C-alpha cells in the first residue's frame, strides 16, 4: 500500500498534502545516496567485488534491478534490497547514477591480456559494448573501468549457468576460451 502510494507520487510528481512531516516523496538523490555505503559515493565503488554504478545507463540499472527483484539474476543481498523499491523509484535511481561520470579505476591488469582483450572486444563484443565498453547498447552494462574481481565473479556465474546470458552474448562467448574471456575482462578493467 505504502509502496504504491510512494511510487505514484514519484511517478506523477503530485505532492500529497499530509499532516506529517514528510511532505514530499524521496528524491532521486535521497534514494541513491543510501546505495553509496556499498557502491561508493555517487556510485563510484572502491571495493573490488562491488560494481561501480556511476555512468551505467538508466536501462542497464533498471534491467538489473528488475532481475534481482524477480530472482532471475542471482545475488546475495541485492534481491532482498531490490524488493524495497517501486519501479518508479528504481527508474529515479537508475537515472541518477547514469548521470554520474565514469569512475576510473587504477587496477593491476596484465598488459598482454589487455592487448589480446582489445582485439577480441573489437571483433566480438563491440556491437553491444560500445566504445571500448564505455557505453552499452540498450540495457548492456558499461564495462569500462569496472572492477576485475566483480566482472570475474559475474563471468563465473554466467559460465556456470546461475546467471543467464543474453542470447547474443552467448553466441559470442560460447566459442571463446577461458583465457579469451579473462583477457577481455582485463581489457575492460584497463579502460578509463
Amino acid at each position: 500500500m505504502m509502496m504504491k502510494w510512494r511510487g505514484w507520487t514519484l511517478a506523477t510528481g503530485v505532492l500529497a498534502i499530509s499532516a506529517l512531516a514528510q511532505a514530499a516523496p524521496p528524491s532521486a538523490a535521497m534514494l541513491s545516496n543510501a546505495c553509496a555505503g556499498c557502491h561508493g559515493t555517487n556510485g563510484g565503488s572502491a571495493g573490488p567485488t562491488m560494481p561501480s554504478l556511476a555512468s551505467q545507463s538508466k536501462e542497464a540499472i533498471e534491467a538489473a534491478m528488475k532481475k534481482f527483484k524477480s530472482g532471475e539474476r542471482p545475488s546475495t543481498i541485492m534481491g532482498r534490497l531490490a524488493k524495497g523499491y517501486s519501479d518508479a523509484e528504481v527508474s529515479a535511481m537508475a537515472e541518477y547514477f547514469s548521470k554520474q561520470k565514469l569512475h576510473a579505476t587504477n587496477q593491476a591488469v596484465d598488459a598482454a591480456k589487455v592487448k589480446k582483450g582489445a582485439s577480441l572486444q573489437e571483433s566480438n563484443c563491440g556491437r553491444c559494448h560500445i566504445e571500448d565498453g564505455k557505453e552499452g547498447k540498450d540495457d548492456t552494462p558499461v564495462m569500462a573501468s569496472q572492477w576485475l574481481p566483480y566482472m570475474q565473479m559475474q563471468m563465473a556465474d554466467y559460465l556456470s549457468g546461475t546467471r543467464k546470458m543474453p542470447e547474443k552474448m552467448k553466441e559470442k562467448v560460447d566459442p571463446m576460451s577461458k583465457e579469451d574471456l579473462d583477457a577481455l575482462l582485463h581489457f575492460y578493467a584497463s579502460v578509463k
Partner: protein
Amino acid sequence: MTLDRRSFLKLVGAGAGAAGLPLIGRAAELMPKSGKRVVVVGGGYGGTIAAKYIRMMDKNIEVVLVEKNDHFVSCPFSNLYIGGILPDLTELTIKFDKLASNHGVKVVQAEVTGIDAAGHTITTSKGTLKYDRLVVSPGIDFRIEEIEGYNDKTPELMPHAWKAGPQTSLLRKQLVDMKDGGTVVLSVPLGPFRCPPGPYERTSMIAHYLKTHKPKSKIIVVDANPDIVSKGGLFKKGWKKYYEGIIDYRPAKKVTAIDAGKMNVLIEGIEEVHGDVINLIPPQRAAKIAQVAGLVGDDKKWCPVNQATFESTLHKDIHVIGDSSIAGAMPKSGYSANSEAKICATNIVALMNGREIVGLSGINTCYSYITDKEAVSVAAVYALQEGKIAGVKGAGGVSPDLSAAEAVYAKSWLKNILTEMST
C-alpha cells in the same frame, strides 16, 4: 575568515594550552561564525558522512567537524582482528584530512563538553563554536551503574571492546596470552545496544580463534536476552556446524555484578561464572555528550528525534543521528548511521535553504562473519510510515544460509563505507 585550515589548526593548538592557563569562565570562541554554519559532533560512522554530504550538497554552508581523536577506528571488522583473521587495525583506521581537502570540511580535534541549545553554541576542550544547526553523532556510552563492582578500571581487566581501538587490542592480547584449556566469558547486555548481531559475531570469531589455536579452550556466552537478538537461526546453525563443544550459549542470564578479584561475573547477583578472559559488554545508552546536553528522552537512555529529519524533539536545531538516536526500525549499525547521516544532511540543507523536506529513504546492510571464510547478512530498506521509520514490507531479511560469497562482499562493504567516510 581567510585563514586556511592549517593555520587555523595551529591557532587552535596555540590557544588551547600554550600559556598553560586553565580555562576558567568564558572559553574563547574558536572560529567566529560569519555565514551559515553546521557543526558536527563526532567523526565516526554518522558524523563524517553528515559533514561530507552537507558540503557536497551546499558549498555555502560552512561545516565544522569536531572529533576528540585525530583518527577513527571502525568497530565493523574489529571482531576479525580479535579472531586473528586480520593482522592489525590498520585497515580499519581512517583519518579526516581528505574530508578537509576534498570537501572543505573544517576538522577540529577537541572534545565537546557542553551544548547551549538556546545560545546555539557548543563548548569544547579548545574553546566555543557557534552554529546554526548542530549534528550530534557521538555513539554510545555504558550504563556501568547497573553492574555492581564495575568501575573506571574494569575495562582494563574485563574489556568491552565495544569501541574500537585500545580496547580491541587489549581483548586480542588477553586471548593470545590465555593458556590453552582456558575459559572465555562473553556477556551480552539487554537490547537495544550497538550492533545487534555484534556479540554473536564476536562469539564466532573468538570460537574460531580457540578452535584454530587453543582447541582445549571454550567460550561461555551469558546473554541477558531471552535468545540471540539478530540472525539467530544462522548463528545457531554456524555454531553447530563449526563450533560444537566450543561455544556454550546460555540465554536469559543477566550479569548484574562482577568479582574482579576472582575474575567472576555474577548472574542476577548469585550464579558465579568464572573466566580466564572476560569480555564484558555492559548495557548501553547514548554517549555522554548527548546526556549532558539534555538530548536524552524519558527512557534516560536514547535520544528521541523527528524521524523525518533527525531533529531532536527536545532541542530545536540539534539533530541526533547514529547509535545515540531513536531511529524507528533502523538498528544501531554503522550502515544505518551512514544512511541516517545522508537523510539528515539532505534535510538540513533543505531547511537551511527554506526548501521543503525531502521524503526519507534508507538502507541497512550488515554482515557477520561466522568463520574466516563464511558470513551471513541482514538487509532492509526503510521508509517513513505515519511519522516513524519502518522497514518496507516484502523487502530485506537475512541470508538463506552461511555463504562464502557474503564473506567476499563484506570486504568490499568495509572498503566502500570507510572510503565514503574518509575521502
